[in-house]
């Protein structure tokens, strides 16, 4: 039973992280390799705000949300905007470089010490027994709930609101979208903002659950296979893919070794690429476009 719970929590974490990958990719055909760093910074935002405000979880979280969102906009307007018209490869490399820069800045600002934002928030991460033999932490529950909420909101927006529709249009044909009066910068920036927000949220909850240090970005890398297994341009594909990868990872921890679990997502990825390179729900044409 514990395995099932662990898989669900891990899958939720992956879902939160990967929604950003997919959003940015769908809007601007850029794979953001600085995603793990954005996640870590989200965690540190919460930590800093928590120290500043002291024992006020609601306000701390809200302020950290706003910071994360703003960070996404800043990254777009001060960096990625200039990469319009460059090759996809160059844009991806810029995000790689951005990742290095951010990692350096994180260690500069917050040092590489191990941090616990939880103690500054005045909250506790207790364990709950939900069924016989299965334990979940408070923030594990928070992770699952926020994932469900975020995906519900995103799906509804993409399906029923005009900006969701326009976001899809921008991803499909930016030139035509622009000629139909849609401001590209706004929607690109929006995709970066939401991506930074969602991954920052993942970082915050993860930081509360198990502490915070600059090496957290590795989780972002491990989440890559999830996006590719689900299909780079499919938000819906992320959910089953996250479960597959999480299952593979947790099973490897249980039956082989924790060390091997680091590779498990990538083994899943390779087998997926051999069978169905465009992913479970991705479109086949995507292979040609990148």
């Amino acid at each position: 039973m514990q395995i099932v719970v662990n898989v669900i929590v891990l899958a939720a974490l992956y879902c939160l992280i990967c929604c950003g990958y997919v959003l940015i990719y769908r809007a601007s055909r850029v794979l953001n390799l600085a995603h793990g760093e954005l996640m870590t910074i989200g965690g540190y935002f919460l930590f800093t705000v928590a120290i500043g405000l002291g024992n006020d979880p609601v306000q701390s979280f809200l302020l950290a949300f706003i910071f994360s969102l703003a960070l996404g906009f800043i990254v777009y307007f001060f960096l990625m905007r200039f990469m319009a018209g460059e090759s996809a490869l160059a844009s991806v490399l810029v995000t790689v470089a951005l990742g290095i820069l951010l990692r350096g800045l994180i260690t500069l600002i917050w040092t590489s010490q191990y941090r616990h934002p939880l103690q500054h928030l005045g909250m506790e991460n207790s364990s709950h027994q939900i069924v016989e033999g299965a334990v979940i932490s408070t923030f594990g529950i928070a992770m699952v709930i926020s994932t469900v909420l975020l995906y519900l909101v995103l799906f509804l927006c993409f399906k029923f609101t005009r900006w969701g529709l326009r976001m899809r249009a921008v991803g499909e044909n930016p030139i035509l979208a622009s000629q139909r009066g849609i401001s590209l910068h706004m929607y690109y920036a929006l995709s970066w903002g939401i991506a930074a927000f969602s991954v920052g949220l993942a970082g915050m909850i993860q930081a509360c659950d198990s502490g915070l240090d600059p090496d957290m970005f590795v989780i972002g890398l491990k989440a890559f296979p999830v996006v590719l297994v689900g299909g780079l341009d499919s938000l819906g594909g992320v959910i089953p893919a996250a479960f597959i990868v999480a299952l593979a990872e947790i099973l490897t921890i249980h039956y082989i070794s924790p060390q091997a679990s680091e590779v498990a997502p990538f083994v899943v990825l390779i087998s997926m690429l051999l069978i169905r390179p465009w992913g479970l729900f991705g479109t086949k044409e995507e292979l040609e476009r990148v």
Partner: protein
Amino acid sequence: MAFASGYFKTTYKSDLAIVETFSLWICLIILTLGLIFFPFFASAFLMDLANQVFLALIGAIALMLLTGYAGQFSLGHAGLIAAGAFTTAILFKELNAPIWVTLPTSGLTGAILGITFGLPSLRLKGLYLALSTLALHFIVIYIGAEYETQRGFATGVVIDSPSIGPFLIEDPRLWYFSLLIIDILVVIFSINLVRSRTGRAWMAIRDRDVAAEALGIKVASYKLSAFVLTSALTSIAGCLFAYYRGFVSVEAFSLHMTIEYLAMIIIGGLGSILGAIFGTIFVVLLPYIIDALVDILHVPTRLTTYMFAIKYSAFGLIMIIFLVFEPSGLVGIWHRIRDYFILWPFKHKPLGER
């Protein structure tokens, strides 16, 4: 001036020449003499730097062949270096093998890995390919780590200096000359390779694979050949790396190493062997340049504890600056400066020339 200012080739022989003009010969000879006499004046620190540059150069040129010429994007470079290093370490520890066994075996391991991970490239492009090579990285590192823990070398494997015949290569100067010779061979080999049919096929595939296939280029086999060659060369670099350091541990082969190699070819300028050389020198020396700057500027000692993070950020920042403002890299700057002097008082090269 040391360079031809236009297209003056009138015979086939001059078209085939690697060194185009007499004055370029002179420049090269001076450079070679400089490189030969460098060890006799340099301090131990400078020798170590030079050796590091030479070691990195092999890997950088290999990656340049794959990414800059064949257009296949790889994130598994550190994994390949690790593969070479661990092949060497395992052979040395288990069989006590000498360098003339470990070096070719490393190359062979690399070639096999190259085939395995080149295979996805037949179906995948761009980002997808990059991420499948990322998987290579993690798998190789995992195998290395498994070996370390299973055999009880928790912190890493120690390797003795290699000996060729009666010579024990331990002295930095001996290393310097061995690496110099290897590097010169690698450079000449790759310059000739990219001028040959293979190189032209790679460039055709890089620019538009469908068109290349339509022109009768066997895209699949040339893609694979690029992967095999690059991986073999990189693994050999990994083997030398292991001997030079005398110590192999998984921690050394982080993803950051891959990014450093990518940075070398980007900062140097994609699609140019000269670029790979420039880029390698720049990236290897960058942390030391920052150190020197800190010394000169008398930064308060309080800040020196942050040196690592500062270097890290500076590295990222410089990469961003190059990608955004100078996509053609150091070699692009060099060409512009050179052309300015060659063509003066004119402004532009004849249309269509590089």
